[in-house]
């Protein structure tokens, strides 16, 4: 039985109320804690009126524990000015900070009190030594050199950067040494163990072959000058960099078979075992081109089976403008389903995982689950399966913002970037395809007073209270922190799958966590592995304890090993260190 109790008393909002909604008997609420937490990041896209394509694409964020103090810190990616630097004063919205604009690192000085946690983000960029001044897009936070400290890999329009965490609060630029300086227009990447050697490789998603020299002026059907659609440019091939274990990477794109597939306009990626064969697969969201499902052959080969699996095109057989992607077991059947965010006048799309052993298979269940119509008007980017109301069922969050004036509003001198759209949340309720459907939460739940041109969404338990909070990045606007106040009334427990603790902590990425419960189907969650758009979320997993007894926790590692632990203590994150659990290579079904 899933937890289902009467409405809970909501904690007094300590910040500006963002929004509330009711899901069944359970009230959900986010508070906008941006200002109170000291989060003062403003993204700047450097737009100059030329409508350079990268301006409208936007950047993401990463939630990660850079100082190993047990809470989530925040990295935010910044834009820049396109064109001659000397012309930057001609930007439509002037840059008011120190030149050049840089990505920012915020340390979370979380204060735990009896009456609740207080989140304080402190900008530690200067002391961190990070100088990320490229035209930034996305970011990955993972321990790439196996030293127990989480590093940063920043995706840029231009050369990507690898910032090595030195373990003392500082980072050093290891781009060149690591061989990760992909010069193409990269937007997102997944740091995950593709070859089962327990270090993290990098699958880099590249977007388009854009440069100022190839910039085009695009017109709408009404003849208005507008931002281009991706079809105006050639897609840039993706790349796979394999980690040698020391933080040095080799390009394995050809060897792994990436070049066998037609390149896509990639914007989003996640890593997870999608076909249930205990090997890590990759799913790439391509903009207006068929999405790619890279199934792991286990021999170093990745096989693209997007079309064959039914996960590349929607139910109409059409490629959609995919921006963000999320994986989660929305219907509680034990496998990972996929949710894709799209352009306006396309629906977001939910692919239910109907795979059988040896035959991966996804079916578009957008219509049946009620997710079609509500997303029709929106251009959605960042997304995540999030248990917003702590009822044990994965809900969905999608952050929105148009990419063309035609889909937004005509620009004016006073409003040069009128692409804002309300963000959306969809609550998972009984009924519909797979026995579940989604109901839109009231508009404003994820917006506060003003919608922005939202792009990135990083989900994680920022205040360590067992529910999922959100960081939303906005193109040419402020980053926002939304704290979830819908605490699980029956308690919660958290786990942090960790590869190694001999030197610091090495969070796993893309591992599958199964929470076995008495009298209920297991809860299945993915720890790490990326997803969303250009963003990186919490590598830990928290689930509500509910009113069923938790028997054991199972982690399926990226080399195929499966280990079990007994139920962890409530209201805390318990590290599950590889090699410390009971080995269970054959999965057993729970008795009801």
């Amino acid at each position, binding site marked *: 039985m899933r937890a289902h109790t009467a409405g809970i008393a909501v904690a007094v909002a300590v910040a500006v109320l963002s929004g509330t909604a009711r899901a069944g008997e359970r009230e959900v609420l986010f508070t906008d804690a941006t200002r109170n937490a000291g989060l003062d990041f403003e993204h700047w896209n450097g737009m100059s009126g030329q409508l350079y394509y990268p301006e409208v694409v936007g950047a993401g964020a990463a939630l990660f524990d850079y100082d190993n103090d047990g809470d989530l810190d925040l990295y935010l990616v910044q834009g820049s000015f396109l064109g001659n630097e000397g012309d930057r004063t001609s930007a439509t919205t002037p840059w008011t900070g120190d030149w050049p604009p840089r990505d920012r690192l915020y340390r979370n000085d979380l204060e735990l009190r009896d009456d609740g946690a207080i989140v304080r983000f402190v900008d530690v960029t200067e002391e961190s030594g990070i100088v990320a001044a490229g035209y930034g897009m996305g970011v990955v936070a993972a321990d790439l050199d196996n030293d127990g400290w989480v590093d940063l890999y920043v995706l840029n329009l231009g050369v990507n950067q690898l910032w090595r965490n030195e373990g003392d609060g500082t980072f050093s630029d290891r781009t060149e040494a690591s061989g990760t300086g992909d010069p193409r227009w990269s937007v997102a990447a997944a740091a995950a163990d593709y070859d089962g050697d327990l270090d993290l490789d990098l699958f880099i998603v590249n977007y388009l072959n854009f440069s100022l020299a190839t910039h085009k002026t695009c017109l709408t059907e*009404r003849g*208005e000058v507008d931002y281009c659609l991706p079809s105006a440019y050639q897609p840039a091939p993706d790349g796979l960099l394999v980690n040698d274990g020391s933080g040095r990477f080799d390009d394995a794109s050809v060897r792994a078979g990436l070049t066998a597939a037609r390149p896509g306009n990639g914007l989003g990626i996640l890593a997870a075992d999608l076909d249930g064969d205990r090997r890590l697969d990759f799913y790439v969201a391509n903009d207006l081109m068929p999405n790619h499902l890279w199934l792991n052959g286990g021999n170093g080969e990745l096989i693209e089976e997007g079309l*064959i699996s039914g996960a590349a095109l929607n139910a109409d057989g059409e490629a959609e403008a995919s921006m963000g992607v999320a994986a989660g077991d929305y219907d509680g059947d034990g496998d990972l389903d996929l949710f894709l965010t799209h352009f306006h006048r396309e629906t977001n799309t939910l692919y239910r995982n109907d795979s059988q052993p040896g035959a991966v298979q996804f079916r578009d269940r957008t219509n049946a689950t009620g997710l079609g*119509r509500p997303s029709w008007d929106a251009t959605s980017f960042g997304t995540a399966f999030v248990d917003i109301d702590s009822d044990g069922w994965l809900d969905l969050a999608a952050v929105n913002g148009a990419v063309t004036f035609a889909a937004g509003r005509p620009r*004016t001198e006073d409003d040069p970037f009128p692409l804002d759209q309300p963000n959306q949340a969809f609550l998972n309720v009984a009924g519909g395809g797979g026995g579940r459907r989604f109901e839109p939460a009231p508009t404003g739940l994820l917006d506060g007073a003003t919608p922005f041109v939202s792009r990135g969404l990083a989900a994680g338990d920022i205040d360590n209270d067992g529910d999922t909070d959100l960081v939303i990045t906005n193109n040419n606007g402020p980053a926002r922190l939304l704290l979830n106040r819908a605490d699980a009334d029956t308690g919660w427990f958290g786990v942090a799958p960790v590869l190694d603790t001999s030197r610091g902590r090495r969070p796993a990425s893309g591992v599958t966590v199964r929470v076995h419960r008495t009298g209920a189907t297991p809860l299945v969650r993915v720890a790490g592995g990326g997803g969303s758009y250009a963003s990186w979320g919490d590598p830990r997993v928290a689930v509500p304890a509910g009113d069923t007894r938790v028997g054991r926790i199972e982690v399926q590692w990226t080399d195929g090993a499966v280990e079990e632990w007994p139920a962890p203590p409530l209201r805390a994150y318990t590290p599950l260190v590889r090699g410390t659990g009971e080995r269970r290579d054959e999965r057993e079904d729970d008795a009801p």
Partner: protein
Amino acid sequence: MTKPICLHGAALIAALLLPLAATGLRAQTATPTLIPVPEVDLRGVDEAVRDQIDQQRGLLEEALAQGTPTGAAAEQLGLLFGDAGQLYLVYDLLPAARACLTNAAELQPRNFRWRYLLGSAAEHLGELEEAVEAYDLARTLRPDDPATAIRLGRVHLELGRYEEARGHYQRALALPGSTAAAHFGLGRVAFETDDPTTALRHFQTALREQPRADSLHYHVALAHRALGDDAAMRAAMELRGEAPVAFADPIAAEIKESATGIGAQLLLGRVALAANAFETAEERFRETVRDYPESAAAKRSLATALEGMGRRAEAAMWYQEALNLSPNDVGLLFQTGLLYNNEGRYQAAAQRLRRAVEIEPSFGPAWVELARSLGETDDHLEAAEALTRALELAPDDRNLRFHRAGNYRFGGRRELALREFEALLADFGFDREIVLLLGRIEQELGRPASAARRFEQLVEAGADPPLLSQAHFELANIRTEQERYEEAIPHYQRAIAANPTLKEGYFNLGTALGRLGQFTEAALAARRALELDPSDSRARAAEVTALLLAGEDARVRLMLEQTLELPDQGGSGFFALLLAEVLAASEDDSVRDGPMALNLATDLFQRAQTPAHGAVVALAYAETGDFEQAVAWQQRLIENLERAGATEALPDARERLAAYQAGRPVRAPWRR
């Protein structure tokens, strides 16, 4: 900045509360309410596009500024809203398109096109419930339209209403041009409801129906995958292409066409047309026809312009040219039928209109025009049947019921007509025109008493002079037929008083007066009829006859001589024979002239050897004193009458023979 079209003012909204136009279908008695069109911001829009939109909304604003339109003006406003909606749709200005199309549909509720496009606009806006509503209404107007069925199926599918979607796709299976799309839809429904076996069957059938839609291979492949047939899945996936499943959707195609150059050209022509600048419109449309010779819309528009200038024959030719390209375009068939009706080419009109209603049985105005064609060719019962079909769409339409009753009457179904007219009185209250018609039908049914009661009812109720005049006239005729001349005469007089130009009233009054022996007054009444129509030989004959009976022989001789000098207006033979008779048999010595009578009579007899002519020759011989010839002619006349069995004329003929044998001429035989 361009001035946006913005109907926000309360006054303007009030002005938009329009009564429904008279299309012949007046089922919608409620006043339609129009909605404001959202502001369209055209900053940054290409000048050519902005000009198009500006022109279109200029037309709308002009039409709206003229106040509350009725009848044809409301129809025109509906068209303007529809055209504007289409234009906004072409340029993806969906909220404005939706508002315009909503108004167009409100003003022209039987126009399938607006409902369909409204559904399309709503669908593009993601307003799926609204799209369903619009498509459902479109479906009631054109139940067999394949595109509507497919779109309804699709929208329900997107709403996750699989049973409804299945129903619409099943319906589409039987419709021309949509079989493949229907199978595709049914396959989608089956696949989404976890029935891959059925899905596979439908996808494969769709592919057989439309092999070029190679995107279907993808769906075939997924169905194979779901059924666990990996080899078949891979084989199908290899064949996958990009060509989607197509279905017959002419309106969507036209909208797509409008997004290209032809749309702009047609719009310029329509702007001129709306401003009654027909020559400019003709010039624009001729250019369009030259540039797009395969465009039915261009040829149809040219025909419309030509028709506006009254060049109907040319218009008919271009309508036919358009029909050759688009033979199932019901709007075009209707327009062509309407033109032919207006030209009096009713059979040609009926042919087009029949086709229109075959394709779109819910096209009410086409049924009405068809009824008109049929009525004009005396196919009254078929016309009544067409009006019955129109009435199925608009059951409360009084005009349709009225015309149907009229067609029943002229088709010989007078009892049915009687019942229909009486039902109209019961449903809509007392109506003088209907009472008059009821009286006439009662007369035609041989029920003078009932007829008279109807007319008396009308007279008592009072009416406008023309109707009152007709009531009195009909009543007088009944009394005349009943030989109740004293009662007839005052009704004729009142009929004439109410309508002084009622020639028949004067004529019949003269007849009634004559029956009462009031010959001088009768002659005067006949004279009034003759004054109203100097060519009416019947009235002239009535006048001279009355004068003869009044003893005005000299005046009659003069009138007849003058009449015979006039160009022949008909009846000259009669008047000549009468003159011969007057010259031969008048009691007035100064009038008689035997030789002249004999010359005239024998001359007339050479041309027409009738008993009447023979009798006048005998009269003339007697007047000249040649009784031997008079007897001989009279005896031949009697022999002929006996052979012809005209026994009623024999006594008078024998009496005259006796007179001639006695050497006596006959005087004033007309008094007998």
